[in-house]
C-alpha cells in the first residue's frame, strides 16, 4: 500500500513538473510571438493521436528505454554511468558486423544481438574494473571512453565495415538479422519488445532478487551495505556489465531495427546522442524501469513532434529545441533533487565522526 502511495506521489510530482515545464515553455513561446496553444496542439496531435505519429514516438523510445536503463541501474547503485553513449556506438556496429557472415533468419538476429551486448559489455567493463580496483571515478572514465568509442566507431565505419560500393556507410545488415517491422509503413519494429522486456527484467532484478537488493543498498547507503556484507566491487562490476548489455542492445535496435537504412552512416548521425538522451529519460522516469518506459515514449514523442511543430505551428527549430529543453529539465528536476539529497546525505555520513 505504502509503495503504491509512494509511486502515486512520484507520478503526481512528475505531472506537476510537466505542467510547470509546459507553462514556462509556453511563456517563452508567447514572449517571442508564437502561439503556445497551437504549438502544443500540433505537437500532441502529431505524436500521440495518430497511429503513424505514435509509432514514430515508440520507435524513438525504443533505444532510449535501453540507454536509460543503463544509467538508471547505475544510479540506483550509487554510480554515475555516463558511458551508455559509447557502449551504444559499438553495440550498433557489432550488430552490423554479424552481417559479415550468413546465418539462418532468427538465429542470425540473436547472434547479432549477442555481438552487440558483448561489445557494450567490453566497453563498460574497463571503467568498471578501474573503479572497482583502483577507485578511478567512473564519471570521468566513462566520459573519456565515450570519445574513444566515437572515433573508434568512425574508423570502423570508414575502414572495417565499410560498404564497398558506398563509402559513406557500413555494409547493409542482412535481412536475416533484422528486427521485423511491427507496423508496415512506419519505422517501428519488434525491437520495441526487446526494450520492454529489458525494462521488465531489470525491474524484477532490482526489487525481487537479492542481487538487486544489494545493488540498491549500496546506492542508498554504502556504509550500511558494507556492514550488511555487500561487496562494493561486485556491485560495480555487475551494474556496469548489465548496463553495457542494455546500451549495446540500444545500438543494435538502431542498426538492425530502424528502417529504411539498416546500416550505420559515417559520422553516426542516426545514433548520435541516444546514450545522452537516455540520461534525460532516466531522470524523467525517476530511474525506475516502469517510469522509464513512459518517459521514453514521452521523450520520443517530443522528438518526432518537434518536426511537426516546425512544420505546422511555424516555429523555428531553435525555438522548438528551447521548448523541449525546458520541458525535459522541469521533468527531470524532482529526480535531480532526490539524487542531490542522496549524495549530500552520503557526504554527511562520510564526514560523520565520533565526538559532537
Amino acid at each position: 500500500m505504502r509503495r503504491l502511495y509512494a509511486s502515486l506521489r512520484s507520478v503526481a510530482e512528475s505531472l506537476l513538473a510537466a505542467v510547470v515545464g509546459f507553462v514556462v515553455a509556453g511563456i517563452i513561446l508567447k514572449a517571442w510571438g508564437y502561439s503556445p496553444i497551437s504549438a502544443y496542439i500540433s505537437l500532441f496531435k502529431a505524436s500521440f493521436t495518430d497511429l503513424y505519429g505514435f509509432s514514430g514516438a515508440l520507435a524513438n523510445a525504443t533505444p532510449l528505454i535501453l540507454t536509460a536503463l543503463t544509467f538508471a541501474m547505475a544510479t540506483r547503485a550509487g554510480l554515475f554511468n555516463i558511458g551508455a553513449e559509447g557502449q551504444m556506438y559499438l553495440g550498433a556496429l557489432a550488430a552490423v558486423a554479424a552481417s559479415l557472415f550468413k546465418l539462418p533468419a532468427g538465429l542470425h538476429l540473436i547472434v547479432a544481438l549477442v555481438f552487440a551486448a558483448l561489445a557494450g559489455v567490453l566497453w563498460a567493463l574497463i571503467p568498471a574494473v578501474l573503479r572497482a580496483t583502483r577507485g578511478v571515478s567512473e564519471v570521468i572514465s566513462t566520459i573519456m571512453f565515450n570519445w574513444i568509442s566515437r572515433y573508434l566507431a568512425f574508423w570502423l565505419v570508414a575502414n572495417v565495415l565499410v560498404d564497398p560500393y558506398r563509402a559513406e556507410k557500413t555494409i547493409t545488415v542482412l535481412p536475416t538479422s533484422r528486427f521485423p517491422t511491427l507496423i508496415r509503413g512506419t519505422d517501428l519494429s519488434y525491437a520495441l519488445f526487446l526494450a520492454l522486456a529489458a525494462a521488465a527484467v531489470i525491474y524484477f532484478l532490482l526489487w525481487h532478487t537479492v542481487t538487486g537488493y544489494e545493488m540498491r543498498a549500496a546506492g542508498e547507503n554504502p556504509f550500511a551495505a558494507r556492514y550488511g556484507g555487500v561487496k562494493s566491487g561486485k556491485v560495480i562490476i555487475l551494474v556496469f556489465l548489465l548496463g553495457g548489455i542494455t546500451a549495446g542492445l540500444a545500438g543494435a535496435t538502431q542498426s538492425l531495427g530502424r528502417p529504411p537504412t539498416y546500416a550505420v552512416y559515417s559520422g553516426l548521425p542516426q545514433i548520435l546522442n541516444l546514450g545522452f538522451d537516455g540520461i534525460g529519460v532516466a531522470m524523467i522516469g525517476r530511474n525506475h524501469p516502469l517510469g522509464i518506459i513512459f518517459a521514453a515514449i514521452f521523450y520520443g514523442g517530443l522528438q518526432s513532434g518537434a518536426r511537426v511543430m516546425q512544420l505546422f505551428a511555424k516555429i523555428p527549430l531553435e525555438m522548438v529545441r528551447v521548448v523541449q529543453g525546458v520541458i525535459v529539465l522541469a521533468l527531470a528536476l524532482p529526480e535531480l533533487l532526490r539524487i542531490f539529497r542522496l549524495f549530500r546525505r552520503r557526504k554527511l555520513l562520510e564526514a560523520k565522526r565520533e565526538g559532537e
Partner: protein
Amino acid sequence: MPEPLLRAEGIVKVYADGTVALKGVDFEVRPGEIQGLLGENGAGKTTLTKIMSGLLHPTAGRIFIGGEPVRLRSPRDALERGIGMVHQHFALVDTFTSLENIALGTGLPLGPSLRHSVTELMERTGLKVPLDTPVENLAVGERQRVEILKVLSRKVKVLILDEPTSVLTPVETDELFGFLRRLKEERVGIVFITHKLREVMEITDRITVLRRGEVVGEVETRKTSAEELARMMVGEEIRIRGRRPVELRTELGEEARREAARARGKPVLVVEGLRVKGDGGDEAVKGVSFEIYPGEIFGIAGVEGNGQTELVEAICGLRGGTGSVLLKGREVLGLSPLELYRLGLAHIPEDRWKYGLILSFTVAENSILGRQRSPDFLGSLSILRWGRVFSHARELIRRFSIQAPGLEAPAKSLSGGNQQKLIVGRELSKEPEVVVAAQPTRGLDIGAAEYIRDILLEMRDGGKAILLVSADLDEVLALSDRVAFMYEGTFTAVTTPSEVDREKAGLYMGGVKA
C-alpha cells in the same frame, strides 16, 4: 578582579528535536586566563562553545562582550567582535599553502602586508609554521597552528579551543601549552575544552565542570585535585538503577555469577594485542587485550573518541587492524562482516544511520540487512522471497514491540527508539554467540533505553557473550560483569563494577591508570 572579556548568562539550548543540551549555564572568560571547560560526552561543552562562537543561537540567556549585551549572528560576526574558535576538525584547504589558508579564513587580502603581519605574529607568539608549504604536507600539529594563526590574525580577545590536544602527539601538546602560556601574557582569554584531567590540571587557571547541561562546579585549578574534578564530572548519583542487574546481583552475588559463567566454558571472544589505525592514520587502538566468556557482559567505558569506535569496527570486520581476535578459537581479524555473522557474531553499530539502517529502505528490507543471502529468504535464481521477509519483519515487530506505520514504511519514518529496536531485533535474529553492542542506547528516550538494556541482560542470561561499549558510565557499570576503561587507545583499568566507585571511574576515564 578584571572585567570578563566574555560572559554568558543563563544560557539554555533546546535543539529542534527536543533535546535540552544546556539548562541555564553561566560562564565567563577573563583576560590573561585559561579557562578550562570539562565534562563527559553530552555534557554540553560543544554546544556552549558553539553558542559563544556564533555557530548556534541560544534558546534563552544572554551573552556579554566587554560588559555589552550582544547577539552573535554568525561565526564571522563573533570573530569581528573578537571571539575566535578553533574546531576539533580543521577547515583547511589541503592544496593551499598556510598563508593562502590564513588569507582565505580571515578574508584578509593575500599579499606582503598579510605575510608581514603573520610573520610578526609568529615571532611574537612562537607559533611557527612554514608559510609557503601546502597544508597537505604539514603535520597535524602544524595544521592546528595554521588554524590558530587564522583566528589570531583577526586580533581576537577570546580564543576557544575545542579538544585541541585530541589530535596531537605528547611533544606537540607540550609545544601548544608553551604557546598558550605566552598568549596569556598578551591578555588573551582562552577557553580550553577537554575531558583529560591531567591536561586541565596542567594548563588552566580556572575550571568549569559541566554535567548534563548544567554547571556542577567552578573551581580555581590550584585549589582542586584530579580526584575532585573526576567526581564532579561523572556525578555522585547512580542514574540507572537497572532493576534487573541489581536484583540479579543480590540474588546470586556478582562474583559467584562470574565464576559460574567461567565454569561454563572457554571464552568465546579473545582479543589480544589489537592495534587499529584511526581515520587520520594515527594509531587509535594501541594494543588492547581482553576476553569474554559466554553469559557475561564485558563493558568498555570511556569518553568517546578514545579508540572505542575503531576497536569495535576492527572486531566487527569494518576496519583493518593488527594483533589477534579469536572467535570461538578461530582467528577472525580481517574477515568481512558477512563471514563474521556466519561464525556467530552480531553487531549493533554505534551509528544507527550510517551502518545500522538504510533509512530509505522499508522496515521489511532493513529487517534482513546482512541476512539477505540467508537461505531463509532466498529462493532459486537468487530471488528474494518477500513473503518470508515480511513474516520475519512482522515477527520482529511483534517480539520487540516496534512501533512502525507498516512493513513497507521507510525506516526513516520510525522514531530513534524503534529504529534501534529494529536493529537489535535483526541482530538477535542472527542467533549469534557474541553480540557487540556499541552505544546501544545513545539518543534514546528512557523507556526505549531501558528496554534495550533489558534485552542485553536477557541475552546474557541466555548464555551469549556481550561486548558493551558505551560512553554512558552508569550504563556500563549497571550492566557489565566486568568493565574496562579506555583512554587514548589503551585500557587504564580492567575490573568489576563493584570495585569501582565513581571517583575512581572518573580518574580511569581521565587517563589515570589503575
